[in-house]
Every structure is written in C-alpha cells, then in structure tokens.
C-alpha cells in the first residue's frame, strides 16, 4: 500500500522530537490566540513567519499549521464561556455552547467541542492523505492556461464566499491583484508602480501587507468600543459527557465532519461556511428544533466538527496546486517560498517528507489539542481576563520586531502603517480584507501564467476556451459568479451572513 508507506514516512517526520515540540508550540500558540478575541490566526502567522526562518522548512510549516487549527479549537472555548467567538468560525458554537454554559454544562460543551474536533481532524487528515496525491497527478498535466483558469476560479469562489457585498469583494480582489504586481516585471525587468523607491523593486512585503490590513485594522476596530469581557463559568466541572450526551452527538459529529471536509476545499473562508451550514442542517433535520438556541448539544458538536474538518482539508489546494484557499494558506505559501520551496504539484515528489510530515503532524496536533485543551481550560479562562489594552501593545511590539527581522528593512514598517490605514478605511466601508490578500498573493502568478499562455498560443485568447480543462474551470467560475448574483441567492446569502454575524 502506497498510502501506508507514505503515512509511515509522515509519521517518521512528524514524530521527531523537534517536530513534536514545535507542533506543540504551534497548537499551544494557536489555542492561545484562538481564545483571545481580537487577534486571529492570520495576523499571528504573519507575525511569526519571520521567526520560523531559522527553523527547517518542515518544522516551520508544522508549527504554522498548528497555529491555524489550534486557533479553531481555542475559538470555541471563548465562544462557549464568554459568548464571544474568538474566531469567526466559532460564532455558531456560541449560540448553543454559551447557553449550555449558563445551564452549568460548560464542561460538557467544551468536551463535546474537543471530541468532535478530534474526530473531524482525524477523518480530515485521512481525506487529505487519500485525495492529495491523485489531485497532484492531475495538476502536473496543467499548462499555463489551466493554471490561469484555476486561479480565476479560486478568486471568484473567494469572492462568492466573502462577507457582504459581491461588488466590494470583487473590487478588493482586483485591488489585491494590482498591489501584487508592484515591483520588478519578471519579463522585462522594468520597475512597476515603485514610485521611485528602490525598496519596492522586490514588490510589497507580503507580511507587512498582511499585518497591516488584518492586524492593525483589527486593533483599530477593537478600539472603537472597548468593553469588559464577562466570563460565565468560573469553574468548569463535569467534563465527561453522559451516555445520553454521547448518543446525541454521534450523528451530528459524523455529518459535520463530512460537510466540513467537502466545504474546506472551496476557496475563501471554507471553515466559516462549514460551521454555519452544518448548524443549519442539524437544526433542520432535528426532531426537536426548538431546543436549538437553548443549549442543544448537537448545536455544538456539528459546527465544531465541521470547522475543524474544513480547516484541515483547506490544505488540499495549497499542498497539491500551490494555490491558497484562504489568507492563512496564502501565508503558508509565503513561508514555503521564503524557505526556498516552490509550492505546487512538485512538492509531493520533490519533498515527500515535507508533504507527508505536514499531513501527519495535523493528526498529531489534534491529539495534542485534546490532551492540552481539556486539562488547561482553567488557564484559558484566566487568560480571558487579560484586558485588551494590555494585549494590543504586545501585538504591535511583536509585529514590529517580526517584520523588521525579515529583511532588516525599515521601509516595511512604514508599509505596515500605510496598509493599516488603508485596511481600516476599507473596513469602515465594509470591505472585507480576505479577498484582497488572496489577490495579492495570486497577482504575480496570475499574470505570469496569462502571459505565458498567450505567448504559447501566439496571442490567441481563445486558448482558454479550447483547452477542455481550462474551459471547464472557467465555465464553473462564470457559473459561480452568475449564481451568487442571482437576486434569489443574493438575498439568501445576505441572511446567512447576517445570522452568522449575530
């Protein structure tokens, strides 16, 4: 069995003491920032990216991945105990989880979230291991036209799944693409949009842009109204779910895992959609839908499984195609490039230890999270009492040092301030930053493949429609765009995101 041999290689890589240690550090950090509202995995990974340069590529990526799925775990703890989702994907968990906590069943809710997440993480790891290699084989057949079409599809799906207005999301993607083109043109060496600054010859610093539009803008938004957080459960007891609870949570966990695994592959915030969709399904098929919103255990089990499964399967497009499905994956690709690895279908053949090591480390990380999260809940509760005005100066100090350490370039720090301002202004206009960052990463790749495809086809633009795979991908992209613009769907979509924001 190839799969077994590959997983064996993965275990051999993931279980070295160094990698276990960094996997642990990553998941611990992830849980920490997941618990703390106001700082998300995107900003954290952006800040820590430079620090991981001193590590080997596989160790660095294992740690960064740990931060990502660890944050999904931590976010649910805050949602249940404080009714404040630490991460956007755990907003749904807060509905029933917080009610359970108020009924004195915080322990059961937390255990349900942990068990559901662990099961989902295990299944999703297997899904990645089984489906990533065949997808890679397909990806190797791709020419520039197919890559261009695939990236267009990715960008359009990201737009469709973004919060708020479609028009704004489209504009944000376009702006991101343009910003990504700043720097030296690869074909002619001409400097583009550098405003005469030699520091911009290599393009805008990705980390500076990410910290600016996500980190700084988020801090400013939190400063708009500073309020105290109220922790419900001071002491969490009764972690073990009863037999009745177990019986109730099995089916929702299975359904949530399946749904999350599928939705996670979609570009653009798959895990957020997954948790919401699974909650809706549970409520719809339940024989007692009136219990939802009043502490139904199914309302915790399903979305928690779904968002964790989706967080894992969102690695599939990143690992197989080198195309990010969300801003965190974009950062992972950035980390690979900085480490000297070219992301794409070649990773699995050129760096099998890295590829399988990351996949297996996700399962190891999930195991660590169960062991870590349940006994440490008391500590997380206490952490929630750290006031925000102590947190954000720390966040700023870490970001400043982190960004400066990448290139020892003070210009990058001014870029942080500029993009922080731009990000905040755009946030005020209700423009979500995620599509912008995706566009920023894909901009140079998109242009390169477009130009290459046009050179190969001798300027014949129909090449994108005559090659079957490329035509199919573009057709799906157009279809997605038409569907989200249909008045009916547009209204439904608005409702979905409104409930999610509630």
């Amino acid at each position, binding site marked *: 069995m190839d799969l077994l041999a590959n997983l064996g290689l993965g275990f051999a890589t993931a279980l070295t003491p160094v990698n276990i240690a960094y996997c642990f550090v990553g998941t611990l950090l992830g849980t920490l920032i997941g618990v703390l509202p106001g700082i998300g995995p995107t900003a954290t990974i952006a800040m820590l990216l430079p620090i991981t340069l001193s590590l080997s590529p596989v160790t660095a990526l294992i740690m960064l991945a740990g931060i990502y799925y660890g944050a999904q775990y931590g976010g649910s703890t805050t949602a249940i105990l404080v009714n404040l989702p630490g991460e956007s994907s755990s907003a749904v968990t807060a509905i029933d989880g917080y009610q359970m906590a108020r009924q004195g069943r915080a322990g059961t809710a937390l255990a349900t979230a942990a068990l559901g997440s662990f099961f989902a993480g295990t299944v999703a790891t297997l899904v990645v291991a089984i489906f990533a290699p065949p997808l890679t084989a397909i990806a190797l057949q791709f020419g520039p036209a197919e890559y261009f079409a695939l990236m267009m599809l990715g960008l359009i799906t990201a737009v469709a799944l973004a919060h708020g207005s479609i028009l704004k999301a489209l504009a944000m993607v376009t702006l991101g693409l343009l910003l990504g083109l700043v720097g030296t043109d690869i074909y002619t060496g001409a400097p583009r949009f550098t405003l005469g600054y030699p520091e911009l010859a290599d393009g805008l610093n990705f980390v500076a842009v990410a910290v600016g539009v996500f980190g700084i803008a988020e801090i400013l938004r939190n400063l708009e109204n500073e309020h105290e957080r109220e922790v419900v459960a001071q002491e969490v007891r009764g972690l073990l779910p009863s037999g009745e609870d177990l019986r109730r949570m099995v089916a929702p966990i299975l359904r949530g895992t399946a749904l999350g695994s599928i939705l996670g592959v979609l570009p653009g915030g798959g895990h957020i959609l997954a948790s919401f969709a699974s909650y809706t399904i549970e409520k719809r098929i339940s024989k007692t839908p009136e219990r939802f919103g009043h502490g139904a255990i199914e309302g915790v089990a399903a979305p928690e499984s779904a968002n964790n499964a989706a967080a894992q399967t969102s690695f599939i497009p990143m690992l197989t195609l080198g195309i990010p499905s969300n801003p965190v994956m974009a950062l992972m690709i950035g980390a690979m490039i900085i480490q000297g690895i070219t992301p794409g279908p070649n990773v699995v053949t050129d760096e099998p230890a890295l590829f399988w090591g990351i996949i297996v480390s996700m399962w190891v990380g999930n195991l660590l999270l169960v062991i870590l999260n349940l006994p440490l809940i008391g500590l997380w509760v206490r952490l929630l009492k750290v006031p925000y005005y102590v947190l954000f100066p720390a966040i*700023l100090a870490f970001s400043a040092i982190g960004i400066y350490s990448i290139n020892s370039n*003070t210009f990058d720090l001014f870029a942080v301030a500029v993009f922080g301002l731009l990000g905040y202004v755009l946030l005020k206009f*209700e423009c979500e930053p995620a599509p912008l960052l995706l566009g920023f990463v894909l901009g140079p790749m998109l242009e390169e493949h477009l130009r290459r495809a046009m050179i190969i086809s001798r300027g014949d633009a129909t090449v994108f429609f005559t090659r079957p795979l490329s035509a199919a991908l573009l057709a799906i992209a157009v279809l997605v765009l038409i569907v989200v613009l249909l008045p009916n769907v547009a209204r439904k979509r608005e409702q979905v995101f409104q409930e999610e924001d509630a």
Partner: protein
Amino acid sequence: MIGRRKDLSAGILFIVIGALFVYGALGQELGTPIRMGPGFFPLILAGVLILLGALLFLQGLRQPSAEPMVVPWWGLVLILLAPTVFGLTVQGLGLLPAVALVVLISAFASSRMSAWLALLLTIGLTVFCILVFSVGLGLPIRLLGPWLSL
C-alpha cells in the same frame, strides 16, 4: 442596512486607486497580446477596478444615507505612529529603545490606560521581547544603536 456613504465612499476610493494605477501602467510599455508588456495586465485590472468602483458609486446613490461613523481618532494616530517610530529608530537607537517606544506609544491608544500602567507595561513587554527575540531566538539586531554610543 449598508449606508449610502459607505458605498459611495468605497466607490470613490476604488476609482481613485484605479486611476493611479492606470496612470502608472500607461508609463509602461504595453506590448501586444502575444508578448504583453509590463503595462498590459495592470492596465486591464485598473480598468476593472475603476468600473467596479463606478458601479459601487451608482449603487450608493440609490441608498439612504447612513448613520455617522465612530472613529477612534486618537487611537488611530497612535497605532499608526507606533510602527513608523519603530522604523525610524530601530537602526539609530537600537532594538531596546525602539521596542519600548512602540509599547509606550501604542499603550496610550486605549482610553483606559493610565500613566503608571503604561510605564509598567512598557518595562515588562520590553524585557520580555528582548528575552524572547534577542536572547532566545538570537536575532542579529543591535540592542543599543550608534546614536546612543557616544
């Protein structure tokens, strides 16, 4: 529920940024569709951005006007100042004073901060950062820069 001013302003912002990129792209060689020059793709994208901005602007015209925005002006200035000051001082003054300045400046962005707490926070976080980044991770950044060594 989405205010008029937000769509109008977002539209104007996108149009302005798009126009700047059009200006930049026109200064580049455009090339032909077979061999696209450095200006070709940016010009298309900038055109799309202007079009989207215009659509947003028109959409904003049809919507009722919005409630006034809350902007933490004081915090905004300080939070943007913090990384800028770090950039200006890290090479001259060194890492230690630069970190202290970032913490001190940003701490006052919160309306709940008191002078004593800010001072404590500055000392604590600076020591923590130096321990983690300089001692722990061994970042090769000078703790005290040339401006301080007389």
